[in-house]
């Protein structure tokens, strides 16, 4: 991401900082013209990605950084959350059927599923110890290729 229309935040990976991150992202999204509903989705997706950095990337080291970059383009908002922690395999943690998953009453594992449900595009790029990134995109006016589906209809489609 270049500087143009890019907003960057780099803060210690602590849960108490999640609020700062949410307000930072919400304000940019709101100023950019997203509806309150979309602002809510964007801030939740970013919270989830950053919560994962705090919980999983650094084995509890709260001095290490979370990096949040927000970029505004004419048709979309792109957010990249970066950590320099241990990384993970995004494929291994994918939930294929949320109803089945919930029925097992498992704790956790919902963050990445939520991010995928809330944003129009989600992409991981993992280099353990160097740069682990999740890149999330929200289009203005919704993404035409991916209409929203409820969990039930998503399940029925299979």
């Amino acid at each position: 991401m270049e500087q143009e229309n890019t907003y960057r935040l780099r803060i210690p990976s602590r849960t108490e900082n999640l609020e700062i991150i949410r307000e930072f992202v919400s304000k940019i999204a709101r100023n950019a013209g997203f509806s309150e509903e979309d602002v809510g989705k964007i801030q939740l997706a970013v919270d989830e990605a950053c919560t994962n950095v705090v919980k999983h990337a650094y084995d509890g080291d709260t001095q290490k950084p979370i990096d949040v970059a927000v970029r505004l383009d004419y048709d979309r908002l792109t957010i990249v959350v970066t950590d320099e922690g241990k990384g993970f395999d995004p494929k291994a943690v994918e939930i294929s059927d949320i109803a089945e998953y919930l029925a097992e009453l498992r704790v956790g594992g919902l963050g990445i599923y939520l991010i995928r449900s809330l944003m129009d595009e989600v992409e991981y790029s993992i280099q353990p110890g160097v740069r682990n990134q999740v890149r999330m995109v929200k289009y203005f006016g919704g993404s035409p290729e991916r209409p929203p589906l409820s969990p039930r209809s998503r399940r029925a489609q299979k």
Partner: protein
Amino acid sequence: MSGFEIRRKDDGCVSTLYIKGFLDAHTAPQLERSLQELVNEGRFRIVVNFSELSYISSAGLGVFMGFIETVRKNQGDIKLSNMPPKIYRVFDLLGFPLIYEIYEDERQAQEKFAGSGTSSVEDGR
């Protein structure tokens, strides 16, 4: 800080938690402690009133998942009520309505317990 607060009200064998503010990974441990207290006291009939909740992330949702098995094994339940639309949308997105009973008003949730329970609700409202 915008913060997070919990109030608790016991009505006979039903306990209602009123949660307020922002429920995220930072504040979820507070809710966890409140639910743990109820479980320790053997109070498994729990209603959670969401009317004053402004925000919830999966860390908050996870807390309910963490207690539901124990509570149900003890003939109890965690019933949810008074959800603002914004909060409900998150629950719905994750299919939580398949797992939890969600009521418009806390009274409905409380009465469900009264109806099914062995001991009756003492408060005569």
